[in-house]
């Protein structure tokens, strides 16, 4: 068994309204920071998992995303896997 670290990005799906991103863009504009647009806000989730190889780690991470971490109706996800250091 090897230990992998998964870095998961969860973002609101691009076609869906993101009220948080919109409010942040407004806040930045009111702050006088010009030219900021299309702010979208998501989540970063980091987890460690044990797997025999990278393929299994991918499979486990996808399962975690689909079953719990991500609301597939509203969110998309991407992730990167790397072996744990040391």
């Amino acid at each position: 068994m090897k230990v992998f670290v998964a870095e998961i990005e969860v973002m609101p799906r691009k076609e869906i309204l993101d009220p948080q991103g919109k409010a942040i863009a407004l806040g930045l504009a009111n702050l006088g920071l010009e030219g900021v647009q299309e702010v979208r806000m998501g989540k970063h989730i980091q987890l460690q998992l044990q797997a025999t190889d990278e393929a299994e780690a991918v499979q486990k991470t996808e399962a975690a995303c689909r079953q719990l971490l991500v609301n597939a109706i509203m969110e998309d996800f991407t992730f990167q896997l790397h072996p744990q250091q040391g």
Partner: protein
Amino acid sequence: MNLPSLETAQKLGLLPEEFAYIQEILGRQPNFTELSAYAAMWSEHCSYKNSILWLKKLPKSSPRMLAEAGQENAGLVDIGGGLACAFKIESHNHPSALEPYQGAATGVGGINRDIFTMGARPIAQMNTLRFGDLSLARTRYLLRGVVKGIGDYGNAFGVPTVAGELFFDECYNTNPLVNAFSAGIVETGKIASAIAYGAGNPVFIVGSATGKDGIHGAAFASKDLTESSIDDLPAVQVGDPFQEKLLLEASLEVIASGAVVGIQDMGAAGIICSTSEMSAKGQHGMRINLDKVPLRQANMQAWEILLSESQERMLVVGQKGREAEIEAIFEKWDLHAVQIGEVIEGGRLEFFQNGEQVADLPAESLVLGGGAPVYTREYQEPAYYQTFKKFNIEEVPQPGPEELPQIARFLLAHPNICSRRWVYEQYDSMVGTVNANTNAPADAAVVWIKPPQGGLATKALVMSVDCNGRHVHADPEIGTMMAVCESARNVVCAGGEPVAITNNLNFGNPYNPEVYWQFVGAIQGMIKACEKLGTPVTGGNVSFYNQSSTVGKDGGNVSNAVFPTPTIGMLGLLDDPAHRMSLHFKAEDDFIYLIGEALNDLAGSEYLYSYRQIKASPPPAFDLDTEYRLQEVLKILIRNGLLQSAHDLSEGGLWVALAESAMPLSLGFQVKSFLKLRPDAFWFGENASRVLVSVHPHQKEAFEDTMEKADFAYALLGRVGGAAMGVDGQTWLTIAEAQDLYNQALGQWMEG
């Protein structure tokens, strides 16, 4: 471009005769944009085509009515002192089944927009929720999401959620019901209308940008016609309470400025709905340039823009020459009012995109009350109705004395009876500092009305939402009468005078004659009860197709539809704060009375259904005249200051009413049955038109005199006092045990 065929029209949900009628109206073949507009506007949701014939029979008039049902976004009632109350209930059942959090949140958003587009500031919200079997994980997922959605939206929007209803039954397993109610206050001189007139007046779109939200049906039909990608259709509409709060403040400010001719919320069918309804009402038309509409997604087709149901948007018709003033008000609130067109003479809606006319429609032909179709549906009594009537109480096992405390516990902890605090503590019930129930619970919400002109509050709205769908299912006419009466009784028990109702009619597939029979029965019951109580129907919402399977041309089996659930939202008034009444016992030694008759009746009770598992029974005994007389005598008792508490009997009967009166101040009681009835019927039966009251010893005589004069049934049950809940000499539970059971039950289901 090819003009769409009948097949496309059918994919859009139109009937062949409707397609033919559209061609007749236009005098030509419609293009796809126009056809989509008709399909959306003639959908059940917008046109009420399968219900309007019956809805028209509902009583609508009263001297207090400022707008009749269907005239405006919500009902409008004169409450005196130069003020009016706008109130309405609306469903978001299907979106909540798909994504409970956003579905419920956008439902709250929609109903509040209906209120503030009339110029009224929402001051209180309620909701009624129906879910399936609570032991299912899916039910708990839906409940958790819906409650969080209502909370997050309502809390941020800043209007208190003051009351509600929650009921579980397996008939709602697939189709939960989420009905949201809002009430607002407006000065009678500042009421805004959903109308467009005055050629040359500017038409603005305000609020969020428009995305491809809520256009699935049309998108599917369009597949072979356009380049539009199904992939970029949002599966869910996302609500933004922050945007809604800004829209509220900006809308009220712009209405108060007098620069506005008319204003309407964009709900179902988006731009096409608001442009056509406002134009038809003002007997004008509009010329709209769709290129001006701010878009959230790229490359939107004309029909997508017209039909989009993106949230938190308004259509505003302004006075020509005051455009800058209107724009400045919205800018102040970080919103953009974008002029997308103008009002024109004649009744046509002309839409342009990329310099070309993409649709040209008579506004009147699209709307309810205009050209929208109206259907008579057939109905047929289902077989179960007669079967249920054969219920015989003698076939129900009688509990012995040792089993009674066990039943008492079962009922207090039952999901349909136990405390709803797990739900309502997630709602801000106190923002606005108008909720009188925080420190004195009552059968109905009591909400003080702060005068918009300033000064102290001296009057209150008194409101309740009610419906026992199980009773309506067993007998739609009687069950609906009971729902209207219960909501009025709750208002009266809180010290209010019932004034008017709004309704949310949740049913299965109207094309199923047995479902439609339930619908017709419910309307007939509502007519009778509303006429008797003098509470007209100010409007509301019809939600059909709450059915797990609609296969077959008969619209599926009546048994896979939800219980017919015509939720009643009753509005009442309290003109004198001294007349306010709460439900809990106040002091040791007060006398406890039951007002109304105890009968040997178990029909329709939670005890029979859940404890005895007998599901086939008619509703509990009910008589409309008796109910009317009960409410009249209660008003006299309360106004003469003869009661310390008043609590309506409903699910769980006399026992649960006693326990709920005892728990708030931890005051126990000793009571005795006064009739030789079956003990389960006496303590757990639910025959209607009964109220539990407590009376101060000094007022015992005056109370009894009043009851004798009114010649209404009443009986002494016992007295308040001690830490025990004593029934016929036996301690069923201590107050502390009851509180534990009652207060924790729902939380234990939800948090495990």
